[in-house]
């Protein structure tokens, strides 16, 4: 019995300890955001790497998702003779949920991994130690620009993803289904509310923060050797993805249940 409890308890305790360490790390990063020095050049590079270069992957994800969503809702709606809801449900589904969540997951795969691999490699090749000896705080120099860049870029990526996703739905709706183009667009704009989009953008900012934080955290705590960097990269992607899904539930609960 005690053995069973022990076997159950240990991973739980370890998970709690890990969460505590992540929270401390997040606190340290946030504490550094407002205090100088500010590394603007690093911030610019990070925005380019995290935001700009993620556009294709987010766009592709969105267009296929919007298209598939239109087909599904059409098929489902046909059971109640409610095919006309396709435009508005596609728009609401994209902006509230699928835009931020799928965008966040794709960015987690692309960005959390590359941040963790880069910082992890810097750690194992003593570049982080070298930063310290050159009077540069590694958190401030490496983590802060990436966290700011991801938190600012993600809402923009989500907005682009929303638009492309709705366009994907429109493309499928007008070519594969029997919607009239003008009617489809009117239906979309009539039913879409500001908060549908706004809540998704807020989610995006939170997910961006999570992605960069996980990349930096696992990179900075990478074990020695190539294997250590590999493990850090994997942990960054897995933990960022799980945290995004968990945060998405919590945020949805906060935003849409009253």
């Amino acid at each position, binding site marked *: 019995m005690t053995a069973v409890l022990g076997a159950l308890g240990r991973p739980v305790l370890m998970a709690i300890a890990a969460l505590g360490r992540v929270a401390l790390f997040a606190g340290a990063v946030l504490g550094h955001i407002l205090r100088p*020095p500010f590394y603007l050049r690093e911030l610019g590079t990070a925005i380019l790497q995290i935001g700009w270069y993620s556009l294709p992957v987010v766009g592709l994800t969105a267009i296929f998702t919007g298209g598939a969503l239109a087909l599904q809702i059409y098929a489902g709606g046909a059971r109640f003779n409610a095919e006309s809801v396709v435009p508005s449900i596609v728009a609401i589904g994209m902006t509230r949920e699928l835009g931020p969540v799928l965008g966040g997951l794709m960015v987690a795969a692309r960005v959390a991994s590359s941040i963790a691999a*880069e910082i992890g490699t*810097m750690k194992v*090749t*003593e*570049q982080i*130690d*070298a*930063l*310290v*000896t*050159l*009077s*540069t705080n590694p958190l401030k120099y490496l983590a802060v620009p990436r966290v700011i860049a991801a938190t600012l870029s993600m809402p923009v990526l989500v907005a682009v993803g929303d638009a492309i996703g709705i366009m994907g739905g429109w493309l499928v709706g007008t070519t594969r289904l029997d919607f009239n183009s003008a009617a489809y667009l009117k239906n979309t704009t009539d039913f879409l509310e500001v908060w549908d989009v706004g809540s998704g953008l807020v989610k995006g900012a939170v997910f961006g923060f999570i992605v960069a934080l996980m990349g930096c955290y696992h990179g900075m705590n990478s074990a020695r050797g190539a294997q250590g960097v590999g493990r850090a990269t994997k942990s960054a992607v897995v933990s960022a993805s799980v945290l995004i899904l968990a945060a998405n539930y919590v945020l949805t609960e906060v935003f849409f249940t009253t």
Partner: protein
Amino acid sequence: MIELSGVHKRFGDNPVLQGVNLSIASGTSMVIIGGSGTGKSVLLKCILGLIRPDRGTIMLDGRDVTAQSMSGRDRDAFLARFGMLFQGGALFDSLKVWENVAFRLLRGEAALPKAEARALAIEKLRRVGLKPEVADLFPAELSGGMQKRVGLARAIAASPDIIFFDEPTTGLDPIMAGVINDLIREIVVEMGATAMTITHDMSSVRAIADTVAMLHGGVIRWTGPVSEMDETTDPYVQQFIHGRAEGPIESVR
């Protein structure tokens, strides 16, 4: 004056440092010798606070500078006095060579304008025997020995008063090794810097050192002026400086 007393550090069940006592006078050059894996690099990192010693104190000019006992601002001021050449170079591979060398000059309150920092970096590169063309390459485009010398140029770029060199001549040809030995000597004599150098190369030891310390078994086995190194009867030192396979230091571990 750097003084270490009773410095201990273990990694898991590997006791690396087991009570290191050592003092280095300001403006002198200390060379640390000792077998591979005895903890020489760990010792330098402990002084810099990159590794926290488990026990023991480290004093700089009479002040306790053991990492855990210093506040953020004190630690910044402390680190500003140091330069360090890492054993593996530890160059930032996302930055060009000159940006690596000028890293410290480009940042902080006393940051230089870019052109000036670049000129200074090129001058430091010249001192370690690298041509100005190297300045705009990335570290990955250099040979191992060239990377080492860039690391050296970076360590001395801001003219720190205390400089640590972890194996500065490993991987260099004999002529270049001689140039680097002279450079380190020059930095100590002309600029009055304090230097701590780790090396396995006995000709380097004789060229660089005022004093020599041998680390073995987690403690300083022997320390003294370089002139006494050859005369000492300590069998560990004798075996090490003559590179004999037989002796008290087990060669098969």
